[in-house]
Structures are given as structure tokens and as C-alpha cells.
């Protein structure tokens, strides 16, 4: 059963001028049919302006569709009285870690979500500690956020969502503003959450290396879903990915180039280790 499902989702930003010329309004999302199963780890990739960020904001009713439907756990996101139920089930982590932390002490920031939900104080304490441990930031619980690194701040933001005990976390380019180390920390935290706690993850990104461990990759461009499949299926179509101004993981690219220049490689690798194994088999 699908946990999140969009049916023919369309969206355009309303123009502020009174005379909307309908022929010039461009849909940011154009008939998107997207679904996520419980426990799945889905990556959505696409070039800037592909609509992937807009899609993420529909998944917890921050934006409401102008056409089509979005269902979260069977509930239509347009039902106003279910709004907070939906947001509790699907948490959204944004790109800039600085702009999503509310309090000046880490643990109080993590407590912000459950406090808003009216959870009992002892239960909040338990959830905060659990969430901070899950992202490996427990020892920083009394620090001030502005003294932490980008990767640490982003993990605090993830903990803030985790403390609401959601079924699904949507991350909108969580690593775009981070250095390689921070990137690594955040991605490994997300992967762990998915594997160990069974939390459904939707990762919006344009860094292909981050997607190799996920169950399914969805490629978007111009507000439409172009293709989806396992990372291996999607990235083996190197030409197709290129055409949509995206990259394939470096290891895949290397082997694709070797293949093109005549080396006999029957399948394309996704990460460095696989690439080494493959090449040593072919070359030695």
C-alpha cells in the first residue's frame, strides 16, 4: 500500500497581477503521479527548476495542489482539519540549516515540534534524547546552534523532525549548503534512520552520489516525472541522464566512457568499490 500518493498533481504559482494570462502561466508541476511505500528510501533527482522542490512541499501540505490530488496515508492534503495530522506524519527538512532552527539551545530546538503538538513534558524529554541519539548529536544537546558546523546543524534539524515521530521524512536538498564532511554525516544519518528505524525517506537532491544506496530513483524535469527505477536501472541510461542536464555517479561515468572506447563491460557500477571490483575483473 502506498503511504504517499499523488494523482495527476499540477501546481503553478499564482501571479500577483490581476490579469492572469493563462497561456503564459507555466505549470511548475505538470501531472505528477508519484508514490512512496512505507519504509521505502526514494531519491528524487532533477536539474534546477525541475519542480522537485515544489513536489516536496506538497507532501506535507505546505503547498496545496492547484490540480490533482495528494494523499498521505489515505488522507487528502486538502482536508483542512487534518492538516496537523499530515504534518506530524510527514516531516520536511529544508535546505538551509540556519533558517530552520528556532531556539538558541539544541535540545530546546528539538523539543519545539513535540511542544507544539502538546506532548507531555516527560515524553518530550524522552523523544528529544532519542532523536538526538539517532543523529549522533546527543553530546551537543546543550550547545548553541550557531556554534555548530553545517552538517551538525542539519542533523539537529533532522532530529527536530524526528522528535515528532513521523512515519516519513522528506528532505529538500539537505546537503546543498554543506561541505563534503557535513554531506557525508547527514546522508549516513538518513540512511541509518531508514534501515534501523524503518522511517520512510524521500530525498530530494542533485548530487547523484547520494542516491546510490536508495531503493528507487525518480528523475524529474520541467515539472514531470521522466523515469523511475532502481539506481542501477536509472544510471545505466547514461545518455538519457545527460540529456536532462544531470550527472551520473563518477564510477558509472568512468565505466561508461571505458565502455564507449571499446572496453567490454557488461554492467555499469554505482560506487567506487564496485567499480574497482569490476575493473580488476575485466583488466586483470
Amino acid at each position, binding site marked *: 500500500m502506498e503511504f504517499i500518493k499523488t494523482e495527476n498533481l499540477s501546481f503553478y504559482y499564482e501571479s500577483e497581477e490581476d490579469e492572469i494570462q493563462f497561456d503564459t502561466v507555466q505549470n511548475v508541476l505538470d501531472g505528477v503521479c508519484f508514490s512512496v511505500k512505507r519504509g521505502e528510501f526514494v531519491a528524487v533527482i532533477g536539474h534546477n527548476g525541475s519542480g522537485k522542490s515544489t513536489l516536496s512541499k506538497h507532501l506535507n501540505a505546505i503547498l496545496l495542489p492547484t490540480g490533482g490530488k495528494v494523499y498521505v496515508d489515505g488522507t487528502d492534503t486538502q482536508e483542512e482539519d487534518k492538516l496537523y495530522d499530515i504534518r506530524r506524519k510527514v516531516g520536511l527538512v*529544508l535546505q538551509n540549516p540556519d533558517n530552520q532552527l528556532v*531556539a*538558541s539551545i539544541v535540545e530546546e530546538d528539538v*523539543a519545539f515540534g513535540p511542544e*507544539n503538538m502538546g*506532548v507531555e513534558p516527560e515524553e*518530550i524529554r524522552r523523544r528529544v534524547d532519542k532523536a538526538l541519539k539517532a543523529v549522533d548529536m546527543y553530546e551537543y544537546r546543550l550547545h548553541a546552534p550557531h556554534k555548530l558546523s553545517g552538517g551538525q546543524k542539519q542533523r539537529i*534539524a533532522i532530529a527536530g*523532525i524526528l522528535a515528532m515521530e513521523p512515519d516519513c521524512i522528506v528532505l529538500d536538498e539537505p546537503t546543498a549548503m554543506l561541505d563534503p564532511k557535513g554531506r557525508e554525516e547527514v546522508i549516513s544519518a538518513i540512511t541509518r534512520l531508514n534501515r534501523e528505524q524503518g522511517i520512510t525517506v524521500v530525498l530530494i537532491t542533485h548530487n547523484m552520489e547520494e542516491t546510490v544506496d536508495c531503493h528507487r530513483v525518480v528523475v524529474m524535469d520541467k515539472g514531470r516525472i521522466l523515469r523511475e527505477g532502481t539506481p542501477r536501472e536509472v544510471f545505466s541510461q547514461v545518455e538519457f541522464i545527460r540529456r536532462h542536464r544531470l550527472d551520473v555517479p563518477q564510477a558509472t561515468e568512468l565505466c561508461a566512457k571505458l565502455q564507449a572506447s571499446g572496453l567490454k563491460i557488461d554492467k555499469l557500477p554505482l560506487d567506487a568499490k564496485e567499480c574497482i571490483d569490476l575493473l580488476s575483473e575485466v583488466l586483470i
Partner: protein
Amino acid sequence: MIRDITLGQYFPGNGILHRLDPRVKVLMLISVIVLIFCTFNFFALSVVVALVAASVIMSKVPLKLYLKSMKAIIIVILITSLLNLFYGTGEAIAQWWIFKITQAGIRNAVFVAVRIISLVMVSSVLTFTTSPTDLTDALERLMKPLGIFKVKTHEIAMMMTIALRFVPTLLEETDKIMSAQKARGADMESGNLIKRIKALVPILIPLFVSAFRRAYDLAMAMECRCYQGGKGRTRMKQLRMHGRDFAAVAVVAAVLAGVILCNIFL
């Protein structure tokens, strides 16, 4: 560097005053301030001074920091004392032209000086021993009764919390913008006052633009975390009164009684 500016003057520590309930501390500060202005003779004043001195010692904050905060207002103290010195009525001890110094004048001058010094000291004790977060928290809870007058206490406290959170972030950003503008040849250190104020414009405009962008993001992040105002909100940290809090209240109450007695009988 601009980044070195710290907001509030919190001095982390683990003394008894640090551990007191912030609500109690705020209420104590208010009552001590009232006390300071309700002392009508030297005995009453000395009781209050003793209390203030005791709290300064108990705060375990280096005396240097207190002196630093005194430095800023030394001129105020001097001016008000001098004015009071010449405003006394009664028989003159010394007189020169229209200035005359009387016994009452000297008394008033000393009183005013001691009162202002105590006032600054005792307020510093609060800000040195209480973190800004605790302070906003205490204020939110103490302001709660104002809710019946339709004062939006939760909203005020939320604004204070967010302001505290973003001050360092925006300072850091100001620093970055300044460097960026300097790198493009902006001159901020020379010229007259008007010229220098004008030089701030290219710093303030990007700062405002980015602050609004941050506000937009933050609002969205808060919505994602089910923020719906103060209604139905719980708090993780419950403030509970401990033995030490009641003891502190008792001490202040005793001093209050002492001051009243001194005022009446001495």
C-alpha cells in the same frame, strides 16, 4: 570583530544563584528594586546594601565584571549626586554664590549614589547568573496572567526567543557582507559622520533582504513542525520550585520586613 559582541552578559556557572528558578530571580529583582527606593534612613539602606552585597558575592561572578558594568554609568551617578548635593534645604554648611551645601544635601547625595549603585549591581546579578533563554522563559510564565488583558504573552516570548537565536547568525552575516563590500572597494573607515553613515547603506540593504528570506524559510520550517501559536502547546522544561527557591524568597521577605521596621522605628 563584530562577532565578538555577546548578547546579554550571561556568565556560565554553577553557583546557587545560577541554579535558582529564573521566575524567582526576576521577582526578587523587582522586589529588591522596590526596596531600594523605599529606604528612608541609613539603617534601612544598609540592610538593602548588605543584601545586594551578599548576592554579588554569592553569584560567584568575578568582581571585575561588576565594576565594568559600573563604569558605564559612573557619570550618571556623579551628575545626580552633585545635583542632589546642592538641592538640600536647611542650614548651610558651606555656601558659595547660589550654591549651598546642607546636611540634608549631603545625605541626599549619598543616598542617591548608593541607590543607583545597588540598582545596577542587583540587575547585573540577574543578567550574569541567568541565561537569556531562561530569562525569556521566566518572563513568558510571569506574563501569563496578563493574558486576561488580551496581551499576547506567548507571541512576545516567541519573538524574544527567535530574536535571541538569530542575533549571532545575523552578526555573522553582517561580517560577511562587510568583507564582501570591502573587497569591492567600499570605504567604511574614513570620511565624516554623514559619509560613514552613507557607507552603511550597501551593508544594510543586503542584510535586510537576507533577513526577510530567512524569516520566510523559518516560518515554513515552523509550520512543518506543527506550530500553531501558543494554544495547546506544552513545554519540555517544567520550572519547579525547589527548597533553595523558597529559601531565597524567605530571605528577601525577611529583608523586606527589616527595611519596614527600620523605616518605622529608627
